[in-house]
């Protein structure tokens, strides 16, 4: 797999976009907000998944904007059940397909199973179902659309909301700076489940996103991809800045793009020199109440976190052992 760094990805529209699939599986006509980074991510993730796939989607922005009966933006077979159970639904789909294939009732290639949900559906209310599905080792890919709050219900905080952000349930005031907790590290949680492929991704880096999805769905067993999805409505940012903000999140070290293959961390987009986090925070109204003190704290925390990530990438030790299949004890 090629590595697409900052330099390459900045030129993608000049030479390689033609190589990516032209088929649209997440079609136009849906009702997402102007400048929705998530819709862009969904469109490209669906291209990467390819035709032979089944999608289970959680309740949330993307479900609401795309599936109002009698319309649907989804060209894949697609199922929505509830908010917190998407990983469990995907477990069921994968198990159903497995038994139908075993009994000869399923003709043709085995469809890939992909579960999708927002950060609330993933890191908060759906964490148990996701933990169960990852632990059981179902062959599926889980994709989290992380727009860092409950945007569908009106910008309430989730455990994925970053420190200092203003949301409607973490309003800054005399006694509060807004969200006072740090963003939950879902990738580490997935890695702790010994998930063989875990990655962060961003629609601002399309090749990186595209190939990570390909890797994820080709990995036997569970895979987890965490996609930062810029939300102009909730982030109080200009709608024409969504792709740019996605880049700035990476270039400032706030949202590094990396993958963890069989427990081994690796940066997929290297940033030679990090920009100051202010460059990322300033265009967003949700951070505009922050004073120098908090901005400095965010800067120091971001760097400390980034350093730790680099250390993990340099570590010769994987996060969990992998034993080749033929060394496992035989059944019977």
């Amino acid at each position: 797999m090629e590595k697409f760094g900052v330099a390459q990805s900045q030129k993608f529209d000049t030479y390689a976009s033609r190589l990516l699939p032209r088929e649209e599986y997440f079609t136009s006509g849906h009702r997402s907000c102007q400048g929705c980074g998530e819709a862009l991510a969904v469109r490209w993730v669906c291209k990467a998944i390819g035709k032979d796939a089944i999608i289970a989607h959680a309740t949330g922005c993307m479900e609401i904007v795309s599936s109002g009966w009698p319309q649907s933006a989804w060209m894949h077979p697609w199922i929505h059940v509830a908010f917190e159970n998407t990983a469990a639904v995907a477990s069921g789909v994968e198990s159903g397909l497995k038994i139908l294939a075993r009994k000869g009732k399923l003709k043709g290639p085995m469809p890939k199973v992909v579960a999708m949900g927002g950060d609330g559906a993933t890191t908060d209310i759906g964490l148990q179902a996701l933990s169960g599905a990852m632990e059981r080792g179902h062959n599926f890919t889980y994709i989290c659309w992380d727009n860092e709050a409950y945007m569908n219900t009106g910008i309430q905080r989730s455990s994925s909301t970053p420190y200092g952000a203003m949301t409607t349930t973490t309003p800054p005031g005399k006694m509060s700076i807004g969200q006072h907790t740090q963003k939950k590290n879902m990738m580490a949680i997935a890695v702790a489940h010994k998930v063989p492929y875990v990655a962060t991704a961003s629609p601002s880096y399309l090749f990186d996103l595209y190939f990570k999805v390909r890797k994820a769905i080709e990995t036997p067993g569970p895979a987890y991809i965490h996609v930062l999805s810029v939300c102009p409505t909730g982030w109080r940012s200009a709608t024409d800045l969504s792709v740019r903000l996605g880049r700035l999140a990476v270039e400032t070290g706030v949202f590094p793009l990396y993958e963890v293959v069989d427990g081994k961390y690796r940066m997929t987009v290297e940033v030679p020199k990090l920009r100051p986090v202010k460059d990322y925070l300033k265009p967003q109204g949700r951070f505009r109440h922050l004073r120098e003190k908090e901005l400095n704290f965010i800067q120091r925390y971001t760097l400390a976190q980034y350093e730790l990530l680099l250390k993990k990438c340099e570590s010769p030790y994987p996060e969990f052992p992998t034993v080749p299949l033929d060394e496992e004890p035989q059944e019977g």
Partner: protein
Amino acid sequence: MAVKAHRVGMEVSIAVSHAVQLARAEAIAAYPITPQTHIVEHLSSLVANGDLEAEFVNVESEHSAMSACIGMSATGARTYTATSSQGLALMNEILFIASAMRLPVVMTVANRALSGPLSIWNDHGDIMAARDIGWIQIFVENGQEAFDHSIMAFKIAEHYKVLLPTIINLDGFILSHVVEAMEFLDQETVDSFLPAYHPRFSLDPKHPVTMGAFAMPEVYTEVKMSHQMALVNSYERIQKVWDEFGDLTGRRYKPVESYRTKGAKVLLLTMGCLSEVAEEAVDQMRDAGLAVGLLKLRLWRPFPFEALRAAVGGTELLVVIDRALSLGGAAGPVLAEVRSAFYPMASRPQIVGYVIGLGGRDIPPETFKEVVAQAQAEAQQGPTAEYHIFGVRG
């Protein structure tokens, strides 16, 4: 009897899992909860030993059990699960969605009291809290009925005109853990009775569909109406499947069963395995010269209004037994339904309701005798309460 059958003595839970095996369930997702455990334990071992070709998924909660069942059924696999009490309560949210999505999951509920206080023992509080989930709901009385319905439920649920998930209610412990003699069917007979499931729509990349779209106010009511019509219309199909099974095995089922009702002035109405105790009580009362009969309500949803009215006939006094409470309400769930069934009738019996047997309280035949005596007194003097909770100490 035209079919090969053999008589076995077995714990009812184990018999249910064998019936599910004979029905060739393909996908099972379950989470352990007392007193449902023996069913899923035995199914796991049937799968582990290769005696049942199925995917058994040990999910991390009942909420995920029902969610996984929806995913399984949506691919077109014949899907089964079992639960009880808190487990049924935890999956409550998803139960409504399974029926609204018209996925024919079959589930056994080993009925158990709801917490609190915590109680692992039997009553009907769990299923009554899930009364309005839009599933077909059947109560069984003994091991044979549990075995038979565990096969028939798939045939009912999967019929293209029904396509509704189905619950078989089985009283926890006092039925689920009892060893009974039952007539088993062989695989050939079950295969001839129950064809493979071929859904018209499933999650298939060759024919992509969107399942679980949301509805705006313009269509929500219409969707609910179609669900209501499907559930009401399933009545006919349920009776057809019962008749077909009766032709095959000689065991005939009806939505409301009558026991010694001829000439009865008082009728008891019960559900589940309590009916067997009530039969015993009716026998004793008949021997003592009392004109008491028994109605056994097998079909709870869709509710058999006409069949119930016909079975009650011109009886003067109907004594309805509930094993669940509707706290602060007008009646226990069964009593409320029965009163509602008779309210529009020009001639109707006096209806008195008793709640008995909560949280595993043992019900001997004497309880029914006392209940009938009290109900007769109440009928004479006029109602003293909306309903009565019988046998409260202190």
